[in-house]
C-alpha cells in the first residue's frame, strides 16, 4: 500500500473540515480527489504533505505511519496551483533546491538535474528565472522540482487550473504518460471532473469533508453509489425520473405514468418492496433515438417531443418532454432535430441507476 489514510479528522478551531477520511492507494495509483471548492480536498492534500496538522487519525506512506513526521521526512513532493517557483533562483536551482536541503553533493545534484530536465525537455530553460517562463514552462519546472528527489508520493494541488484550455489538454496527456513512465503513486486535487476522469485510475468524490465514493472513473459514471455522485458527475447531467417500483412475475418494474420498464438486469442491493418510491437515473447516452436502435432486447421505447436543441460542436444536447417526463439526450450533431419534432427514444436498461429519493442511496 503506497498511501493509506484511516479515520482522519481535521478541524480548524470548532469548524470540522475533514470527517473520517478513509483512503487506500496501491503503488502506481493515480488517485484524484474531486469536489467543489470548500469540500476539503486541498486541506486533505496539505494534511498528507504535513503542511497542516491533523486533529486525529492515521496516515501511512509506504506502510510507515507519518502523521507525526515533518513534511521533509515524509518523502513526498508537491506541485502547487501557482507553481510556487522560487522567483530569485534559476530553474536549475529551483529543481535542485530540495536536494541541496537534504545535503546531496554537487555531483548528485547535477546528475539528478540532467535526468529530470531531459525527461521533461527543459534543458534549454535551466539558466532562466521563473518570470522569464511561460505558464506551460513553469508548470513543467514545477513538476521537475517534484520529480527530482524520487518521492514515494506525488501530491498535486490543482496544478493545471492556471493554464489555458489547450495547454491544459496537452499537459494532461503529458502527465498521463509521465505517470505511466514513472509508475509513481500520485494524488491529484481538482474541481474539474473531466480532468479527474481523464487522469485518474481511481477518483474520490468529496463533499463536506467526506469521501462520498471512491472508484474507477467507469464505476463513478455508470454505477454511482449515491444521488450526490450521480448528479455531480457528467455533463449534461444524469436524467432523474421519479417513479415507483412494482413486483410482477418475479421481476421488478419501474413505473411512471404510462412508462413501464422491466428491470431484468439491474443489480439491486436488496430486493425492493412493492410500491417503493424511487428515482431512476439515466445517462444521456443511454437514451437512444429509434433510427440508430441496435438490436437488443433490453431496450424500451418511449415517444417524446423535442423542446430544445443545444449545439455544442460534435454533439447536440436535446431536451425531450412527454407527459411529465423530462429527459436530455446526446446525439451526433449531424442529426437534423428541431424543437417540436416527435422522436422515438429507446432506454438502454443495462446502464441505469435507481436511488432512494429521500436518503439519496443507491437501491
Amino acid at each position, binding site marked *: 500500500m503506497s498511501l493509506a489514510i484511516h479515520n482522519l479528522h481535521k478541524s480548524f478551531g470548532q469548524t470540522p473540515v475533514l470527517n473520517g477520511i478513509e483512503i487506500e492507494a496501491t503503488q502506481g495509483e493515480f488517485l484524484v480527489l474531486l469536489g467543489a471548492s470548500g469540500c476539503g480536498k486541498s486541506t486533505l492534500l*496539505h494534511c498528507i*504533505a504535513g503542511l497542516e496538522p491533523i486533529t486525529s487519525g492515521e496516515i501511512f506512506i509506504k506502510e510507515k505511519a507519518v502523521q507525526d513526521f*515533518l*513534511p*521533509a521526512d515524509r518523502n513526498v513532493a*508537491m506541485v502547487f496551483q*501557482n507553481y*510556487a517557483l522560487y522567483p530569485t533562483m534559476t530553474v536549475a536551482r529551483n529543481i535542485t*533546491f*530540495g536536494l541541496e536541503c537534504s545535503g546531496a553533493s554537487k555531483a548528485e545534484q547535477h546528475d539528478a538535474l540532467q535526468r529530470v530536465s531531459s525527461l521533461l525537455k527543459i534543458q534549454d530553460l535551466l539558466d532562466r528565472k521563473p518570470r522569464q517562463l511561460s505558464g506551460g514552462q513553469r508548470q513543467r519546472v514545477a513538476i521537475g522540482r517534484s520529480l527530482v528527489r524520487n518521492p514515494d508520493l506525488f501530491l498535486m494541488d490543482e496544478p493545471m487550473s492556471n493554464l489555458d484550455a489547450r495547454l491544459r489538454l496537452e499537459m494532461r496527456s503529458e502527465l498521463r504518460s509521465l505517470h505511466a513512465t514513472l509508475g509513481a503513486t500520485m494524488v491529484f486535487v481538482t474541481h474539474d471532473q473531466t480532468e479527474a476522469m481523464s487522469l485518474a485510475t481511481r477518483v474520490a468524490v468529496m463533499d463536506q469533508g467526506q469521501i462520498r465514493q471512491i472508484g474507477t472513473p467507469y464505476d463513478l459514471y455508470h454505477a454511482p453509489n449515491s444521488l450526490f455522485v450521480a448528479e455531480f458527475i457528467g455533463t449534461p447531467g444524469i436524467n432523474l425520473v421519479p417513479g415507483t417500483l412494482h413486483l410482477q412475475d418475479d421481476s421488478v418494474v419501474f413505473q411512471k405514468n404510462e412508462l413501464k420498464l422491466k428491470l431484468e438486469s439491474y443489480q439491486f442491493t436488496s430486493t425492493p418492496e412493492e410500491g417503493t418510491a424511487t428515482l431512476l437515473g439515466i445517462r444521456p447516452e443511454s437514451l437512444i433515438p429509434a433510427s440508430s436502435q441496435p438490436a437488443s432486447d433490453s431496450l424500451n421505447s418511449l415517444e417524446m417531443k423535442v423542446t430544445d436543441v443545444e449545439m455544442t460542436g460534435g454533439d447536440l444536447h436535446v431536451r425531450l418532454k412527454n407527459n411529465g417526463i423530462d429527459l436530455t439526450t446526446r446525439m451526433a450533431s449531424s442529426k437534423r432535430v428541431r424543437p417540436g419534432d416527435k422522436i422515438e427514444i429507446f432506454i438502454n436498461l443495462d446502464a441505469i441507476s435507481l436511488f432512494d429519493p429521500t436518503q439519496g442511496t443507491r437501491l
Partner: protein
Amino acid sequence: MKSRRQYSLRSALVHGLLFVLALYFLVPLYVMVVASFKSLDEIIHSSIIALPIVWTTAGWEKAWSSACTGLVCTGIKPYFFETMAILFPAMSAAIVIGALNGYLMSFWRSRSADILFGALIIGSFIPLQLFLIPLAVTMQKLGIFGSTFGLILIHTVYGVPLTTMLYRNFYVSLPSELVKAAIVDGAGVFKIFRSVIVPMSAPITIVAVILVFGGIYNDYIFALTFGETGKRPIMAAVLNIISTQYAVAEHNVNMAAVMISALPTLLIFLVAGKFFVMGLAQGSVKG
C-alpha cells in the same frame, strides 16, 4: 474646442500653483546655497538673493573642520563621523531584526505573533518624549548613558517596530505557497529565510534603508539627551554651531554647516527615490 480651452485653463492653474509651491521651498535653499559660497563681508553688504561676486569655499571649510561649538573648535567633522558610527550599526541591526520579525510573523503565524504585532504598532505610535525619562534611568542603571553604544541600542530598539511593520506587510503579500514548497523541499525556518525570502526582499529593504537612515540621521532629541558632551551626533552639534553666541554670527559658515548636515539624507533620496516608490507600491499592492 471648448473642452480644450477648459483643459488649458485648468492646467495653467495647476502649473501656476505648483510653480508658487516650488518657489516657496526652493528660495530658502537658494539663499542658503549662495550665502554659503559668499564671504562674511559680502553677505553683510550684498542683497540676500544676489549671486556671490567672489565664489569662496571658505565657509564650507570652516564649517567642516574648524567652526566652534562652545570652546571646542573642530568643525562638524567629528560629529558627522560620530553619527555614522551610530547610524550604520543601528540601521543594520534594526533592518536584520525587523526582517526576521516580519518573516516569522507572516509565515509562521500564531496568535501570540498577532498580539505582538499589535503591541509593536501601538508602541510605535506613542510619542517618544514619553520614553525619555524611563530610558535615561534605564541607561544609567546599565552604565551606557552618554555612550555611542547606548545611542546605537536606542536607535535599534526604536527602529525595530518600523522595520518589522514594513517587512511584515511586504511578506504578507508574498504567496504563502513559496514557504510551503520550501518546507516540502526540506528547508528549515532559517534556510527558507536565507535562501528564499531574503533574496526577494530588495524592494522593501530600500524603503527600510531610506526611512531608518532618515530617522536616525535626523534624530535630534535622542542625540541631545543621550549624546556625550563634545561627541554628540550631528543634528545636536549643528545647532550648537549655529547658536554660538559670542562674536559675529558667521552666516556663511552656518549655512554651509546646515547644508553639510542635510546632504546625506538628500543624497539617499535622490539615489534611491525611484526604488523607494517602487518598493512602496510593491509592498502595498502585490508581491
